[in-house]
Structures are given as structure tokens and as C-alpha cells.
């Protein structure tokens, strides 16, 4: 075939018609070709193809959506999703109430200061007494203190209101809210699926105090812009974001003692002297930036160093010898790029770490501003080598400037930020990276254990397109394996996918996302809070265990019974205003709606006998006098036990000694009376109310719907 003589489209089509084995590995799938996807060859109808795409590249079908996709055209829908061109409808309305979504990192820290900073600001404003008082005699907390603390809280709350300040908890709640609402309402569904995937790949945890304030902008600015773009750019934006720099400690990684730093190398090396003796970045760290990086405080000014534990600056460890930190380097190689068997050595890890020394970020808030102005003055005075990009800061005076060798490639001495950027080039284009990413993407979109030939082809596409992530998706949906019967309906949904696909299947309205989010955690997926850099494993056996299975079943029942606050739906809409004539008919209708184009006969077969017995129907409808009343959601508890997620320090059970709320007691599970009163109201959305409260049992219809939503079939996509 001579591609030049045919249109790209028909060339691709004829190539795709060939059997998989004969497809040459070097195919580059052209952008925007709209080439037919090979679902017919796999024996699927258009409706089945649409259902499968919605299951895998979206969070499941909404009522009527399969019809819409078929009407639009399978390939056309695919193009729109890849280009993220779909017109958003309701979504904007749901996101508008969340102010943090549009804020810069600076505004965020100014509006939602971390607790230690908040406390300090309150002290400085004279709102509360200084915590450190030399003359203070008693250290016993006496009962009067409890009253004092309540009074303090009241004062601080009033002051915060006046100043327009909110706690970090309110910030975190917005990240969670937008995640669920986007997944449910976005028309550009593929973006949401990919945002989840790539965040997880470049995982950071909200439970880390140093990460929390940056998590929202990490997802928004480092991850989301590159979802179908260049892997190299995605990689770099995560490498330079404060969330990752803090999470994997690189912000405090500097050259080991004895190693020449960039500033010194320039001083003594080939570059012409700057004529200022040691001024131009000698071991003093450059004009304007006081402090040796190796002194306690990490080379930041004494002020910054003292503020180490306040959370407003990257906290260097007092009295600890400063030097190389290998954490980021190791995870960069092991998790983000080459993979654990990618063929790098421990020496490579150290060399990579050396390449990234000096990659840090400016503390947020006032101190960062001071740092910025000092840098500016220094630059005007002729200092070079330091780089700032947004919050990111490259410190020449912390960078190990000796020569390095990474994966067999020599990085000459005397280079600065180019060292790290060169390493990113090397790892992004490494064949092991192509395989590693191909494997992960294939696992997400095709099968837990993708076959080797498929991975080879996808890896080849990655390499040929220089890491074009959109091309990877295109290659995936163009592969026969994607459509193969043995793979369809075989992936176990993650808890987020269960919750979102249930809401979409019901055509539900989310008036308040927090109760539904709580279920995602109950099923075993604390969003944004997977503590290891590995992110949530994409494997069925991670998600499926006895406790989580029960939670999935109970979720289905409660949702369908209209007992989840904040969620509204109408069965009449689903049944098309035609009431099913019997429980069995209801079952058939619901299974068809919730599991479109899937094999539902076994589900119906299993459940039907239980429904046709008259006495059973009566039993379900009968009142049970001792039925335990489900706790109603009170307006003070918008977050309910989700408060743990919104307040990760509480989730960890550790009291972040901020003195603001006093020692934090974990409340007894289910004991609403001890629930910590909201410090401030989360008033983004109306207080969540369930469609049904009280003890009346659900209708048979709702019971059946719950059974389908909790069924094994619905747990799969």
C-alpha cells in the first residue's frame, strides 16, 4: 500500500481490515481521520458499539444516550470526545458555586490557608492570644479551657468571615465535589475518564499536609491540560508542580555536601566571572537569596526556615543535614515512566536524583512573594541560573552541577535546569516507558491483563507518535482487542464508576454530591487519598472483597430506594410513563435500561423466581416494627462522615496540633451526637435531603432496581 496514493482514511481502513497479525507495528494513526472503528468485524451492532464505548470511555450511558450516539455516528462521537469538543450543558451550572476552581495557587492559599498558617494569622491579628507566653504557668488543661476554646473558635470564625478566609476543609470539599459532578454531568466524558486515569498514574495524596493546598491546582493545571496531548508535557508539568515536589520530597533535594552546585560551577568554570567575587551565586546562594541551602531552613531565609512547620513554606527539616533525596527520582522511573522492570539501576536513581536537585517551589503567600521579589532584584543584578515558572523554582545554588550519567547518557557538568529536563526527555522517549504506559492504558480500557501483542502495538504507536496520548486512545479503540467479545463487560468498575454509572443510568439529579461521595469511600476508594505514589491498582481483586461487595450491594439498594441524600430521580421517567404490569416486567425493563446491550438473561432468570411469589411481594411491602431507623442527614452535617475525607487529618486519626479545634477526638462510628459541628457551612449546594426518609419500606420497583444496581452484572463494564 502506498499511502501517498490513497487518502489517509481509506489507507487506514484497508489496513484495519487485515487481520491483527498482519497489521504492521509502525502504523501511525492519523489525527482526525474519523476512520471506521472495527466493531462490525467483531460482530457488534451500532447500538452495542455505542454501549461499549460509553462503558469504557465514559462513565456509562444515561437514558437515551445510546440512541443519541448512534444517531450522531460512532466515529463522529469518538472524534468529538477525542477533541473534547462537546458542548457542555448542565455542568457549568454545577461548577459555578465552587470558587476555588478558578483561583490561582496564590489566591487559594490566601483564601484557604492551611491550619497552622490560619492560626498564626489569627494570632497576628490579635484575634486570639499568642500561644507562646513565657509567663504562662499552668500547663494543665483545665475545664475552663474547653470554654475558652469554644470562645476562641467563635472569635476565629467571626474574624475569618470578616476577612473572607475559609479553612482548607472547604477547599478540599470543592475538589471532591467537582470530581463527582464532572463525572456525572460532563458531555466530554473521555476527559473525565482520562483525568482520573492520569491523576492516578501521577498519584499524590491529599492526606499529606504539604500537598493538600496544591491538590486542586495539580489536577487542574498539571494533569487536565495534557490528557490527549503530549506525554512529555504532562510529565514535565507534574514534575514541576508543588504537589508532586512536596509529595515525593524533591522540593528539599539539593546537592550533597561536597558536590559543586551550579552557581559554584559557574563561578569557577568556563563562564566569565561576573565580577562580583562570591556575589554572583557563590556558596552564599546568590544575591538576594540569603542563606546556604545546607543551613537549617534549607537556604530559605531564616524567617522561612522558622516557619518550617506552618505549612506555608515547604518545610525543611530542622537540624537535619541537607542533601540529596531520591524519592522522586525513584518513583519517576519506577512508577511514572520506565516501570519497575524498565531496566534502570540504583545508580540511575541516584543520578536522576542529582539531575533534579534544586527543583523546588516558592512557598505560597507572603513569603513566596518576598522570595519572588528577591529573585527579581538578583536577576536585575545579573544573577543567572535560577528559573521560575509559576510556583516552580529552580535553585541554581542547590543544584548538583557535576557531570552525570543517566541510562547510559552523559549529562555534562555545569548545566542547570537542563539536566532535569534532559532526563525527562530521556525517560519519556524510552522504549520501556512506551511499554509501561501501553500496558496501563490497555488495562484501563481493554482488559486487566492485556496480551503482549496488543501492548507491543500500542507501545509502537506511542514511540511513533512521540508520546501522543490522544493517538494512544485512538489506537486503543481501533484495535480488535477493544471490541473482542471476551473483553467486553469484563472490567470490574471502581467504586467511583459504580456510583457515577448508577447515577447516570437513573438519570439522577445531584443536588448535593457529598453523600454519594461518601459511598465511594465506603466501597474502598478514598478519592485523592490513596497514600502510596502507586495510585489505586487497576485490578479486579483490589476492588472486590467481602466488605466492598457488601457496600456495593447496599449502595444499590439505598440509591434505588431514594435514601441517599442529595440525589433525586424519577422512576416514571425511566419507565417512560408506562407502569410495568408486574414485578417481573419491572425487572425486565430495569435490567434493559441499566445494562443496555448486555447479557441480562441470567440476571432476570435469577431474580424472577423471587419476585413472582405473592407472599414475597407482600413481605417486602410489610412494615417491620423493629426496623432500625436510618440516621437522617441533618443540615449541620453536609459532609456527614465524609467529614473524614474532607478533613484528612481527622481521617488519619492524628491531631494536627493546630490548637484551633483542640485535640481531635474521633467520633464513634455512627454516633451522630458527637459529630464535630461544622466550623463553617459548606453552602455550595443546598443541604442534602433524601427523596425518602423514615422507615417506610421501598416499593417493589425500587427493590428490584436496587438489586440490579447491586448485581454482579452492573459491577462490570
Amino acid at each position: 500500500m502506498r499511502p501517498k496514493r490513497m487518502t489517509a482514511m481509506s489507507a487506514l481502513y484497508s489496513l484495519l481490515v487485515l487481520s491483527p497479525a498482519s497489521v504492521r507495528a509502525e502504523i501511525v494513526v492519523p489525527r482526525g481521520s474519523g476512520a471506521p472503528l472495527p466493531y462490525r468485524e467483531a460482530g457488534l451492532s451500532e447500538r452495542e458499539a455505542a454501549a461499549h464505548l460509553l462503558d469504557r470511555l465514559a462513565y456509562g450511558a444515561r437514558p437515551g444516550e445510546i440512541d443519541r450516539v448512534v444517531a450522531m455516528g460512532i466515529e463522529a462521537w469518538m472524534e468529538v470526545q477525542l477533541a473534547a469538543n462537546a458542548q457542555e450543558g448542565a455542568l457549568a451550572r454545577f461548577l459555578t458555586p465552587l470558587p476555588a476552581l478558578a483561583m490561582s495557587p496564590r489566591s487559594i492559599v490566601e483564601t484557604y490557608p492551611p491550619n497552622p498558617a490560619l492560626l498564626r494569622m489569627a494570632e497576628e491579628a490579635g484575634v486570639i492570644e499568642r500561644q507562646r507566653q513565657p509567663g504562662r504557668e499552668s500547663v494543665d488543661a483545665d475545664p475552663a479551657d474547653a470554654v475558652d476554646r469554644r470562645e476562641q473558635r467563635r472569635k476565629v470564625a467571626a474574624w475569618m468571615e470578616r476577612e473572607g478566609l475559609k479553612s482548607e476543609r472547604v477547599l478540599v470539599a470543592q475538589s471532591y465535589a467537582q470530581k463527582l459532578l464532572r463525572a456525572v454531568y460532563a458531555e466530554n466524558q473521555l476527559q473525565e475518564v482520562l483525568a482520573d486515569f492520569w491523576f492516578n498514574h501521577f498519584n499524590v495524596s491529599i492526606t499529606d499536609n504539604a500537598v493538600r493546598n496544591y491538590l486542586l491546582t495539580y489536577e487542574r493545571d498539571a494533569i487536565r491540560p495534557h490528557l490527549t496531548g503530549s506525554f512529555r508535557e504532562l510529565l514535565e508539568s507534574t514534575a514541576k508542580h508543588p504537589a508532586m515536589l512536596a509529595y515525593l520530597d524533591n522540593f528539599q533535594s539539593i546537592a550533597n555536601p561536597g558536590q559543586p552546585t551550579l552557581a559554584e560551577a559557574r563561578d569557577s568554570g568556563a563562564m566569565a566571572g561576573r565580577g562580583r567575587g562570591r556575589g554572583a551565586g557563590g556558596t552564599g546562594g546568590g544575591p538576594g537569596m540569603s542563606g546556604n541551602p545546607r543551613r537549617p531552613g534549607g537556604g530559605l531565609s531564616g524567617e522561612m526556615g522558622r516557619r518550617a512547620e506552618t505549612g506555608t513554606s515547604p518545610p525543611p527539616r530542622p537540624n537535619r543535614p541537607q542533601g540529596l533525596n531520591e524519592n522522586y527520582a525513584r518513583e519517576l522511573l519506577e512508577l511514572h515512566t520506565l516501570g519497575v522492570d524498565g531496566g534502570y539501576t540504583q545508580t540511575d536513581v541516584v543520578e536522576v536524583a542529582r539531575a533534579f536537585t534544586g527543583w523546588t517551589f516558592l512557598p505560597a503567600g507572603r513569603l513566596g512573594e518576598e522570595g519572588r521579589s528577591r529573585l527579581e532584584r538578583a536577576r536585575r543584578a545579573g544573577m543567572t541560573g535560577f528559573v521560575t515558572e509559576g510556583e516552580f523554582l529552580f535553585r541554581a545554588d542547590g543544584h548538583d552541577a557535576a557531570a552525570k550519567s543517566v541510562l547510559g547518557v552523559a549529562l555534562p557538568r555545569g548545566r542547570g535546569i537542563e539536566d532535569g529536563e534532559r532526563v525527562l526527555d530521556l525517560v519519556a522517549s524510552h522504549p520501556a516507558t512506551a511499554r509501561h504506559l501501553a500496558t496501563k492504558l490497555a488495562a484501563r480500557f481493554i482488559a486487566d491483563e492485556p496480551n503482549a501483542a496488543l501492548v507491543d502495538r500500542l507501545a509502537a504507536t506511542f514511540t511513533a507518535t512521540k508520546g501522543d496520548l490522544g493517538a494512544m486512545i485512538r489506537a486503543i479503540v481501533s484495535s480488535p482487542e477493544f471490541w473482542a467479545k471476551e473483553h467486553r463487560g469484563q472490567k470490574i468498575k471502581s467504586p467511583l464508576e459504580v456510583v457515577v454509572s448508577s447515577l447516570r443510568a437513573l438519570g439522577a439529579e445531584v443536588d448535593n454530591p457529598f453523600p454519594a461521595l461518601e459511598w465511594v469511600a465506603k466501597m474502598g476508594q478514598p478519592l485523592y487519598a490513596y497514600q502510596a505514589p502507586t495510585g489505586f491498582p487497576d485490578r479486579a481483586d483490589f476492588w472486590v472483597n467481602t466488605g466492598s461487595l457488601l457496600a456495593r450491594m447496599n449502595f444499590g439498594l439505598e440509591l434505588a430506594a431514594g435514601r441517599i441524600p442529595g440525589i433525586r430521580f424519577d422512576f416514571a421517567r425511566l419507565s417512560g410513563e408506562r407502569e410495568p404490569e408486574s414485578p417481573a416486567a419491572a425487572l425486565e425493563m430495569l435490567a434493559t435500561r441499566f445494562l443496555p446491550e448486555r447479557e441480562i438473561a441470567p440476571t432476570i432468570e435469577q431474580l424472577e423466581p423471587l419476585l413472582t411469589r405473592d407472599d414475597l411481594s407482600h413481605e417486602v411491602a410489610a412494615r417491620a416494627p423493629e426496623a432500625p431507623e436510618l440516621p437522617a442527614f441533618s443540615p449541620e452535617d453536609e459532609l456527614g462522615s465524609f467529614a473524614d475525607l474532607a478533613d484528612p487529618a481527622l481521617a488519619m486519626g492524628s491531631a494536627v496540633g493546630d490548637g484551633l479545634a483542640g485535640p481531635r477526638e474521633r467520633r464513634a462510628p455512627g454516633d451522630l451526637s458527637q459529630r464535630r459541628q461544622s466550623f463553617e457551612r459548606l453552602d455550595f449546594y443546598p443541604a442534602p435531603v433524601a427523596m425518602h426518609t423514615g422507615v417506610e419500606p421501598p416499593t417493589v420497583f425500587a427493590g428490584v432496581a436496587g438489586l440490579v444496581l447491586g448485581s454482579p452484572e452492573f459491577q462490570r463494564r
Partner: protein
Amino acid sequence: MWDRRAFLKSSGVALVSFGLGPDFLHRAASASGVSSGTSTRGKRTLVTIFQRGAMDALAAVPPVGGGELAKLRPRLAMNAARGSADGALLDLGVGFALHPAFADVAPLFRSRELAVVHAVGSPDATRSHFDAQDYMETGTPGRKGTSSGWLNRVCGELGHDATPFRAVAMTSALPRSLYGEEPAVAIARLEDFRVRMPGGERGAALAGKGFEALYAETTEELLGGTGKETFDAVKLLSESELSRYRPAAGVRYPTSPLGESLRQIAQLVKADVGLEVAFAESGGWDTHVAQGTAQGSFARRAEDLSRGIAAFWADLGERKDEVVLMTMTEFGRTVRENGSGGTDHGHGSCLFVLGTAVDGGKVHGDFPDLARGELYEGRDLPVTTDFRSVFSEVAEKHLGVSATSELFPGWRGSRLPLLRES
């Protein structure tokens, strides 16, 4: 007092009325490794309590005599002279004392079931809660990429069949210690571990039957297998005995999250459901401000822990031989008090190990000479015993897991003798 025969009898009645015959009981029993007569009795259980926030070891188990502590933390140090009669330290007679709030467990020290390990902790010097907890729970200090937790690896080494309740965390989310390949379940409340239908038990039972049928017949192996396990587990734990269960006579657990957790763990031990590893949490130990002495925030936490452990131990009754309880905390606190009447993040701390085979009534480990200023970085209690020495000792002697290199990859230390051979 809960009685296994009553369980079999009562749940049989309850289930037959819903059309499930007696042979289910046989299935459920064999699923859990129980057959009439023998049982999972004899299987041992390790109960771990993670004290999150970094417990101040020098407030919990201070050295007595010498007055060094009083010099270093003049306002926080307690001694016999300072407190009133009911606030005095509890001298253990071995050069150390217990904080008075630990009164309920002091008898266990005297009965030689309780041991303290002092100046224990991690070789990694991080003072970040997040990182240090991560390192302790994964058992790989200094390494962040370890995906599994040490308790999950313990389960992997147990080498015999498991029931669905082999590894249980009394938390709402699975703790890091239990991340990994082996199945582990996080249950906040035992009575929630069932199919719940709003509006009635009958509806719930029917829904349960419906789900059970669906999961039994699904072609997807993992869902099918786990589904069956789930229903077997639920039946094992069915509501009827739970509501009848009462702790042993005279035992009263504190009404706190930890008290609740320990009560339910005792329930599980006595229910013979094959529990081998249990995890509970105690929070609020991060006492930066006004930690108090005989009273105050530290004392409150200590009292909760103490009463919980004492109640748990008494509740176990004759099952004590099967259980070892071990506490841990991510690091300790500064020896000197700070300017707010509290202490800041430190390094070494102490832990408790409780069991009938424990070499109790002693403070193990190598406590520094405070008079000679043997502090870590001039500020903290040092670490002279690696926590892995304790964890591996307990894993081996109590659970028979000796594959230390599997449990703690990269560690070449030795176990700290704490338990008698058995």
C-alpha cells in the same frame, strides 16, 4: 455470655423460615473452617493498635529517679511530689513509672502480661506524620513505593486457609498496614456488615437472597467466589447473635471509637470466625499544645487507651492465650516541652505488648542516659530498637511467621526477645 450452640440453633431457625435449609449451615461452617467440635479455636490473633499523632513516651512511661526529666521539661514532668495522691505516677519498680491515666493496665504489668519497649521507633528521621506512618505501616522505613502493608504480608505468610475474617480493620477505610494482595476487610461496625434494606429486616433478607442468587450464578469468577465468601461471612456474623452478645461480666469498655473497636474485636475472637490479624486506631496523640500532666489532653488519650486495653483483656477471658496485643506510634516527641505547654515531633517512642506469653513486667529496650544528654539531635528520645525488631518477634513467636525478609524487605536486624517460645 455468647455461646456457639445458641448461634447455630437460633440462626438455623431464622434462616429456615426464608427457605434456606440446614445444609447451608454446613456450608457456612465448612467455609469458615469450623466443623462441630473443632473450630478455628486455637488460631491465634494479633491485635494491633496504631496510635496516630506520635505518642509522647516520656509522658506515658517516664524514667523515675535522677530528676533529669524534671530539668528538661520542668512543667510537664511528673513525679511523686508534684501530683496529688490520685495523680501520682505509678512506679513500676523497674526504674520507670506509668502515667496515672494508665491505672487500668498497671495490674497487667504486675501480672507480667504487659511489657513496655522503650526508645523504639524507625531508623528514618522523618518527622512528618504522613511519611512516618507510611514507613511504619509498610514496614519499609525510607521507602515510599512499597505497595503492600506489613500486616498484609503477614497474612500472606500464614500459610493456611483463610476465612473472610482473617484480617479485619475496625476502620472505615483499609489502613495502609493492610494494603496488599491478601484479602482484608475494613468494617466500621459489625452490625453494618450485612445487606441492609431500608424499611425492614424482611426486605433486607429478601434482597440478601436475591443478591446471593445473583452472585452464586455469575460467570465472573472473582465476583462469584467473593460473593459466596461475603454471604458466608454475613451469615457467620448474622445479627441475631450480635445483638445477644454481651461482654464478659464486669467488663465495661470506654464509649469511644477505640473502645468500640476493641469490643468488636473481642467479639470476633470469641465468635471463632478465623480472625488472625486485627487493626484498630487511636487518635489524638499529637499533643503540641497544653498536653497537661495528670489531667489534660494526654491524660485523656492515655485513659481511653488504658481502659480499652484493660476491658479487652478482661473480656477475652480464657481466650487470652490466643491473643497478643501490640501498640505502635509513628514517632515520639521532643524531650523538652515547647512554649505552649506541649511537645513537638520527636524520634523514639515506646510501645506496649500484651500477652500471656510475653516477657512482661519489664521495660525492654535500651533507654538512654538522659543525664549524659544522650538525645537524638539534642532534642528527642533516640531510637535504640528498630520497630521491626519488635514486629518480627511478635509475628514469629505468636503467629509462626518467620520469613522476616518477606515481612521486612531490606532489613537485616534481629528480633528483640519479647515472647517466650511456644
